[in-house]
């Protein structure tokens, strides 16, 4: 089998696995939120506990009428969901689920992930601009503000494990955590980096308390206010794919990926559990905080998170350099 065919097959499988996972992660989030709010959540569609609810939602969205506002910029408006979705799904290309199991374990995996996930802002802005709606426009404006402010701390936090492992390759980073996961590295260094990563993740994923793009109580639904039917579901798919992708990244960089007790075949299972843990932490925060204001979001990023992550990265670099000098 030629490598091209092999990668095509793996890519197809991963893509479909991601879409299936996105579908069921929505159910997980709804159930989790329901527990927090002393409710039951989806129950009757696919009794018991609403196992078919995501399928029903997807079918409903597919059958909805697709409305294009008369004043919309049609090309931009119609392209935006795709432009948004592609980078969100593409990030999975570099994620290895176990040693050798993944689409492409690039030697610049982390860089690829960060670069591609930053691209989603283009789709966001196209959606906000193309809709020709004031709420959507304001939301697009906020999106640009927020992504610019939070991509830097996000990248700096993600670089801490990279420096510790001395590689941008995901599998090497995981193997470097065989002794100790990076979340526990060097006293408070690892935990702080992990927390900064989580906060930046919340902002990059546009989740409460940083969901000012969506802000349904002010901007109704933000940049996707004019989208309906399948285009809306593509945007939602992208958002959740991005969220899961970042959870996987968190599990890879800080929680030791597929490392865990038990035989090797349990690796992917451990990995999935850790990613779910990151996802649930993010969800937990989402359902217990109120949203903060755009100026406060920017203040948190530029005045607190950016200096903190930069400092962490520098300290990490010093520690690693000192250790290698001492060892040599």
């Amino acid at each position, binding site marked *: 089998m030629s490598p091209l065919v092999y990668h095509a097959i793996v890519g197809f499988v991963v893509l479909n696995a991601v879409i299936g996972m996105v579908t069921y992660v929505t159910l997980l989030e709804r159930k989790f939120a329901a527990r927090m*709010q002393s409710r039951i959540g989806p129950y009757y569609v696919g009794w018991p506990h609403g196992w078919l609810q995501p399928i029903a939602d997807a079918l409903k969205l597919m059958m909805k009428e697709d409305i294009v506002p008369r004043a919309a910029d049609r090309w931009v408006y119609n392209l935006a969901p795709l432009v948004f979705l592609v980078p969100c799904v593409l990030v999975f290309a570099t994620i290895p689920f176990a040693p050798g199991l993944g689409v492409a374990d690039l030697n610049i995996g982390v860089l690829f992930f960060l670069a591609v996930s930053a691209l989603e802002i283009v789709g966001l802005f196209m959606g906000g601009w193309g809709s020709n709606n004031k709420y959507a426009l*304001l939301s697009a404006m906020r999106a640009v503000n927020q992504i610019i402010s939070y991509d830097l701390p996000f990248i700096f936090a993600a670089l801490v494990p990279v420096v510790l492992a001395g590689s941008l390759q995901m599998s090497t980073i995981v193997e470097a955590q065989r002794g100790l996961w990076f979340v526990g590295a060097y006293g408070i260094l690892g935990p702080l980096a992990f927390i900064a990563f989580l906060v930046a993740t919340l902002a990059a994923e546009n989740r409460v308390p940083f969901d000012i793009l969506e802000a*349904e*109580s002010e901007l109704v639904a933000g940049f996707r206010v004019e989208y309906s039917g399948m285009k809306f579901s593509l945007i939602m798919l992208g958002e959740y794919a991005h969220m899961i992708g970042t959870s996987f990244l968190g599990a890879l960089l800080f929680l030791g990926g597929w490392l865990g007790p038990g035989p090797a075949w349990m690796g992917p299972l451990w990995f999935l559990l850790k990613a779910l843990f990151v996802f649930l932490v993010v969800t937990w925060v989402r359902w217990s905080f*109120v*949203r903060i204001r755009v*100026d*406060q979001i920017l203040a948190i990023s530029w005045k607190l998170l950016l200096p903190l992550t930069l400092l962490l990265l520098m300290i990490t670099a010093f520690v690693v350099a000192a250790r290698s000098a001492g060892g040599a």
Partner: protein
Amino acid sequence: MGETTQTVEVGYGGTERLVMNMGPQHPSAHGVFRAILTLEGETVVAVEAVIGYLHRCHEKLAENLTYVQYPSIASKTDYVSAMTAELAYVAAVEKVGKIDVPRRAQQLRVLVAELQRIASHCLWLGTWCMDMGGALGGGATIFLYAIRERELVLDLFESLTGARLLYGFHQVGGVRYDVPAGWAERCRQTVDLIGRRVDEYEAMLEDNPFFLVRTQGVGVISRELAQEVGVCGPLIRGSGIPYDVRRTEPYSSYQDFDFKVPVETAGDCFARYRVRMVEFRESIKIVRQALDGLAEGPISSRPGVKSVGQVRIPKGEGYTRIEGARGEVGCYLVADGGAKPYRLKWRGASFSNLAVLPYIIPGHKIADVVAIMGSVDPVFGEVDR
């Protein structure tokens, strides 16, 4: 009609302005409020408040319905705290007609008014947090918690009057229903539970830095502005003026009850929140006192009123005011000796509270508009009537 043209300009250095229509159909319009915002970037520089989308001719209706019929319509002015408007109307009729109310009925009125205040504040807390926190976020969590407690109060009302939202509990000369067997005990348990839950909300909100930065220093109503615009209820008490009709002009035996009137001086959203949180506890205290000291005796001075035209009020006029959950609710009644009022005028608490918005919103961000509006707690049934 019903348009307020009061706008306040603040000098911001921006060059381009965007006029955005917020409402009348908007997730956090709390009904049908339309705010025409002029924006410079994210900052609101002027706001025009437009009301009147829920006008239902309440005052004209009152002229066409008898004194026996109207209380159940009066409850539809402020449908979130229906007991308040009913009480204001029957109190006005009793004042003009010089009708006494038995002691037990007075105490029952206090009891339901305070339970209603608890229910109304529960709804306020939930919707306000949802304005700030999003229907898909932490705000919704608080909303569902608060609604759960409101449901308990509505259950009490259901077993008392048979209705959950619009009660028809008050009638001229007293109240229509007496407390059913076992109700007092249930009521006690419910308010105890709500008291504990209010502690939980406080812990959840006040230890949360994001909640504090969203509310402290936002939407400040100064003492002077509060007096000038004539806001009432938690708004004026949040601005440092200890004005509460229950205390300044006691009605329905409020003088016999021991309760505090909470006052905060900051005048911001957080001060209004604190006032309402203390009011939760004070209302619970009053409910307990009312249950303990409930007098024996008749519940109405005119028992057996069957025909809708049976109550006739001599010629005269009068004004009564009571402290509702949102502030001072007034009812001005002119009687001409028949079975129906000649003229009725409502003074809605939400109406006068809403008038402060064009003064305090300019200069804030869009996100604060919804936080400020939620802290004013308007009910548009009462604004437009």
